[in-house]
């Protein structure tokens, strides 16, 4: 069956990435296998679990339910791109640490994306809004309560990131790109 590769250009975490892909390559496989950004997880591969959630032009979407070619010319933010600076944590990420909002960690990238998208549009969400925002993400450790707590903590007025670490030079999301860009 004919499926000539196509060239796509996607801005990922602020950097323009141009690659040849087979049209059937899903966006999540493109991010993980072509760009080495393995923060985004592959779960069910048919849109149920939410582990692969990313921001597409700022809106949360499932990256397993679209082909990379469909995102041509668009901008993508992965979990690697959520922190303001490489080596730092965003408020939501820090609050996840503070409230133990991750157990095995598999759903965490999708949960972080969902929560980040929520607070972008709703800076002070109530519990119902938080639960609706993470309603499309499955946690098999059933740790939802701590995730709700994390969003509440992160959106408490005056909350500051507690995790102290030295910022590393470079932009967020650049981790592991270098090794993967040989192809």
């Amino acid at each position, binding site marked *: 069956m004919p499926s000539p590769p196509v060239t796509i250009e996607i801005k990922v975490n602020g950097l323009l990435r141009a690659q040849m892909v087979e049209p059937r390559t899903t966006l999540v496989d493109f991010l993980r296998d072509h760009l080495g950004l393995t923060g985004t997880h592959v779960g069910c591969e048919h849109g149920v679990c939410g582990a692969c*959630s990313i921001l597409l032009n700022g809106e*949360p979407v*499932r990256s397993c*339910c679209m082909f990379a*070619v469909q995102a041509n010319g668009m901008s993508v933010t992965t979990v690697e791109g959520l922190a303001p600076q490489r080596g730092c944590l965003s408020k939501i990420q820090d609050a996840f640490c503070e409230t133990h909002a991750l157990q095995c960690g598999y759903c965490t990238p999708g949960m972080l994306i969902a929560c980040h*998208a929520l607070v972008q549009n709703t800076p002070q969400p109530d519990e119902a809004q938080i639960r609706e*925002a993470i*309603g499309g993400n499955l946690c098999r450790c059933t740790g939802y309560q701590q995730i709700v707590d994390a969003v509440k903590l992160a959106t408490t007025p005056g909350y500051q990131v507690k995790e102290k670490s030295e910022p590393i030079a470079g932009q967020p999301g650049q981790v592991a790109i270098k090794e993967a860009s040989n192809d």
Partner: protein
Amino acid sequence: MKAAPFEYVLAESLDHALECLDQYGLDARTLAGGQSLVPMMAMRLARPSMLLDINRLAELKQVDIREGAVSMGATTGQRAIENNIEVHGAIPLVRDALRWVGHIQTRNRGTIGGSLVHADPSAELPLVAVVLDATLRLCSKADGEREIAAQEFFLGPMFTATAEIECLTSIEWPIWEGSGVRTAFDETAMRHGDFAMASAACQLQIDENGVCQRAAIGIGGLDGVPRSFPELAQQLVGQRIDVRLAREIAHCAVQQTEPGSDLHADAEFRRQLAVVMLTRVLQAASTPSPHGTTNSTAHA
């Protein structure tokens, strides 16, 4: 799982899209939001040799509120409609239903027309389309444009009257003129946003004395296609809708369905659920809301 190989064509215009469909026919599938098609391709339940991406055609994203109807381009985003206050004012039932469609992440990609042509029997938008008597506009290179009523559009599970070379271009949703229009949508699913085991929708027009002047009701998830019940709805007209009447109508409606059984719900349980859902939406929509004319069941 991964999709089988296919050729990807990005439609440059509607004419280009129709030309491609005409040329490839059976082997092609149109891709809009892809929230149903891409998972089906991943599971290899769908295996088109060519995917025609119509999602970037601006002409299929026009939303136009006219006198008597809202016209919506087929690839209008579900989330865009959910957030459109004017559309909500004109056809509140569509937004009531959208809150039950998948999750925020899928609604950000999913389209109105995509959900209709996919025709899942338990999907929300097909149910609203038959309840509201929506009209679907289809286009092909060979025969040009044609219109079809939602009632005639859904033929069976995942099966519609769309021909292989046709493309759904827009949907016309009638607006009920006058005051006192109230709507409600409710469903039961394993998880909010998952496929409904049973769903119900209604749109009522209630006058200032609490008497029903106009009614439309429907049930999803029981038969192979969403069902509306115009004759039963007619029996509500001229009446004050109380619990007893709501339950009676719901029982009559469910008797006309032939639900199947699956892992999540057997036929009898589905019937019982549907009676509860329809009774609940009729009650919700016939009880005056303190917030205005529109009333919808609580978001679970």
